[in-house]
């Protein structure tokens, strides 16, 4: 049996809706100024070349007064430019948003404009890896005005910006584009090697590129996220998302327990007291070490057909990996109507604690318990999670028994399954919701 769910796809490009009706060619190209052969020749786009630092070096660099945050300024400036040009479907800063009172500080946004008044489309959710289909919407079809810049490793030993760089198909550029339905300010998509038309599937190089972007932006409130197919990715063309939100995400506050440290110094922990079970990766002798362990874990999940989400947090220093099963439950009719009615698709941002709500009543009545209940549906069961963790550890050649502390499975921590999060969680009493206006 093939599992499918129906959902309204999010419009990430202004050219997505025209998919069916091809616009007649005006002059050169197809008239959309897209990235395909019809329009590409002679096109230019700023190119940001990041300094290819090892992780260790960049830590030492923190002792120096950091200069301008160059990538951050570029993303912000270009995004605001597109905003002033009116390329977005709405002004996201006009969407009301708040931190929901509670231990974790879930963030709710009321966004009535994001939702298309469009018929839901069927999505196949039982296959994490699907071949690229050029007939469907993909990022070679976006208009060039929706692109912000090209992003690649600099050939020099320093950051470089070429304002008028040609888009060279031979070099298969990675690009950063706006999402025309932003869920927060600066919502962009990083599309590795856009012209190669890679399907939504993590590989080592692409993940390292995403990690470089997080490290280079050097702002803990600029995070990158990834949704696999079956975990609420809607476009089967390899992309990461990112945006600015200057509050701490609930997932970043969740206590963790170390499971092991790899030979390359990557610490792997398990999240505790969070509605969605997941692994946290941090450290590593170099940025590549960290990227490799995480991407190998992702590859293991996708090859085993387990849908997952990834959050790159803390400027690339902490990565959350969250296998999930919501879409499968939804397709099997195991999700309550009440939760389905909110039409919240629990992708990486929702799982991290940032809830975009489409109905005013949901926004006004948002509570931590509601958020928790929704996310608890997303999580694998404890037993399944342990199975999946074992699978990952086997793939990256680690065994859980390596745990040197012997703390794994200690009763106080693991026995707490919190149906009522506010009372049950210890170690989490600091924060955010009580700041006086």
């Amino acid at each position, binding site marked *: 049996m093939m599992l499918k769910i129906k959902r309204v796809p999010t419009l990430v490009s202004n050219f997505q809706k025209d998919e069916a009706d091809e616009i007649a060619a005006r002059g050169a190209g197809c008239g959309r100024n897209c990235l395909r052969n019809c329009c590409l020749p002679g096109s230019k786009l700023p190119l940001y070349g990041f300094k290819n630092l090892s992780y260790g070096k960049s830590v030492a660099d923190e002792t120096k007064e950091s200069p301008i945050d160059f990538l951050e300024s570029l993303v912000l400036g270009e995004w605001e430019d597109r905003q002033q040009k009116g390329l977005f479907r709405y002004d996201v800063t006009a969407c009301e948003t*708040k931190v929901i009172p509670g231990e974790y500080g879930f963030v709710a946004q009321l966004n009535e404009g994001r939702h298309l008044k469009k018929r839901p489309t069927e999505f196949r959710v039982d296959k994490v890896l699907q071949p690229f289909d050029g007939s469907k919407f993909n990022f070679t079809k976006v208009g060039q005005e929706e692109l912000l810049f090209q992003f690649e490793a600099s050939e020099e030993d320093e950051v470089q910006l070429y304002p008028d760089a040609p888009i060279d198909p031979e070099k298969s550029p990675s690009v950063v584009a706006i999402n025309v339905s932003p869920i927060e300010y600066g919502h962009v998509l990083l599309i590795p090697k856009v012209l190669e038309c890679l399907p939504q599937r993590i590989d080592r190089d692409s993940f390292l590129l995403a990690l470089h972007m997080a490290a280079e932006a050097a702002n803990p409130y600029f995070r990158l996220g990834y949704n696999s197919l079956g975990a609420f990715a809607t476009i089967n063309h390899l992309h990461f998302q990112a945006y600015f939100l200057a509050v701490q995400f609930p997932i970043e506050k969740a206590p963790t327990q170390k499971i092991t440290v790899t030979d390359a110094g990557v610490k792997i922990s398990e999240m505790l007291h969070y509605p969605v079970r997941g692994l946290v990766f941090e450290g590593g002798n170099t940025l590549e070490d960290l990227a490799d362990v995480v991407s190998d874990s992702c590859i293991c999940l996708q090859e085993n057909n387990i849908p997952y989400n990834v959050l790159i947090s803390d400027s690339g220093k902490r990565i959350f990996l969250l296998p999930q099963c919501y879409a499968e439950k939804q397709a099997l009719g195991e999700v309550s109507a009440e939760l389905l009615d909110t039409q919240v698709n629990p992708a990486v941002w929702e799982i991290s604690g940032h809830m975009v709500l489409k109905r005013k009543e949901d926004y006004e009545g948002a509570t931590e318990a509601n958020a928790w209940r929704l996310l608890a549906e997303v999580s694998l069961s404890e037993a399944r999670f342990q199975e999946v963790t074992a699978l990952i550890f086997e793939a990256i050649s680690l065994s859980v028994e390596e745990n040197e502390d012997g703390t794994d499975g200690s009763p106080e921590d693991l026995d707490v399954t919190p149906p009522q999060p506010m009372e049950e969680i210890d*170690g989490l*009493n*600091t924060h955010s919701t009580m*700041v006086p206006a």
Partner: protein
Amino acid sequence: MESQLGLIEKSFNVKYSDGVREALDELPDSFTITDPSISGHPIVYVSRGFLKVFGYSKNEVLGKNGRVFQGPKTNRRSVMAIREAIREERGIQISLLNYRKDGTPFWMLFNMCPVYSEKDGRVVHFLGIQVPILRRRNSLGGGIGRNGGVCYDGGNCRGYVYKCCRREVCSNSMMEMDRALSVDSVSGLDHTEVDVEGPCEASDQEKTKASVAVNNIMSVLANYSELNGRLVIDRRCCQSGTSLLSASLNISFGRIKQSFVLTDAHLPDMPIVYASDAFLKLIGYLRHEVLGRNCRFLSGEDTERGTQFQIKQCIQNEQPCTVHILNYRKDGTSFWNFLHISPIRSASGKVAYFVGIQIEDTTEAREKQGLNPEMRHRSVVAAVKVAVRGWSMGASTS
């Protein structure tokens, strides 16, 4: 433009009377005082105890941000918890792995408290105490603090009556901590080995030591600020209606190196509520001379009325605008200001502020490498939008 060191010197001198440094120098504890209103949130005072523990000289520490003492094994979640405490202007007590100058790591109990101005309730400084933790071998550990060394305490220093307005952030964690400590007290001591990976929980003794130090330092600060007539205190006692920005916004804005001001759209005549260092440098005024004033004082005799009218129209319509306007410095000299103004919405979605970004229109500015002037305008607008939205969504829930 004042040098960073000048600002640091002043951060202390205007708030306290002479002799405060000498009085603080008498205290044996390891502590630092930082100023969130200066760009980069630098250390403006460092104690002798700190220099001894960390192995740095005074000049190597003043002006630095506290994060330079962290290193690769410092727990990221703890670092985030401290960052959030600063943004939310509350105290925090947490175990943290720090690094000495020679690169050796050690665990310390970090206890940070905001220091408020009695007059307007603003956070003027943060006080940070570092109590080295004598490492106990972790056998069973406690309920909290084990996972990554985080000892979450909403901000109350144990045994120290810290009458912060935000007491509510804490309470039940105190009970947890008691439980944790009772388990912990059975473990043995080990002074030599530093387990950088493991979590580390401070003992009761160390926590008391931190609280006593906070008390002593606060009383010195209060004393020397009273003599000066600008009392600082350990709690926010008044929430006056002044439009001063919170420390967290000041810190966010401090990262933006360009010339800009923020004006409050809801106060009469839209006064300036934030002015960047680069703005003050550009126009030659001191900060207190511009805060609270409408931006029109920058205009003068030869400023075109039409341009001023255009700005007024845009503000009324809540629209961004870009103009070239002739402005005047404090010394009376004029310059062409390539000015961009944009409305800034708070988390409620309503316009709360306007930001004005000034770029002096010179040949050099146009030929400057990197982002072009229009893009620099926009990147500041964007950074301000992100900062205000993030800050106000937290603030709205109180």
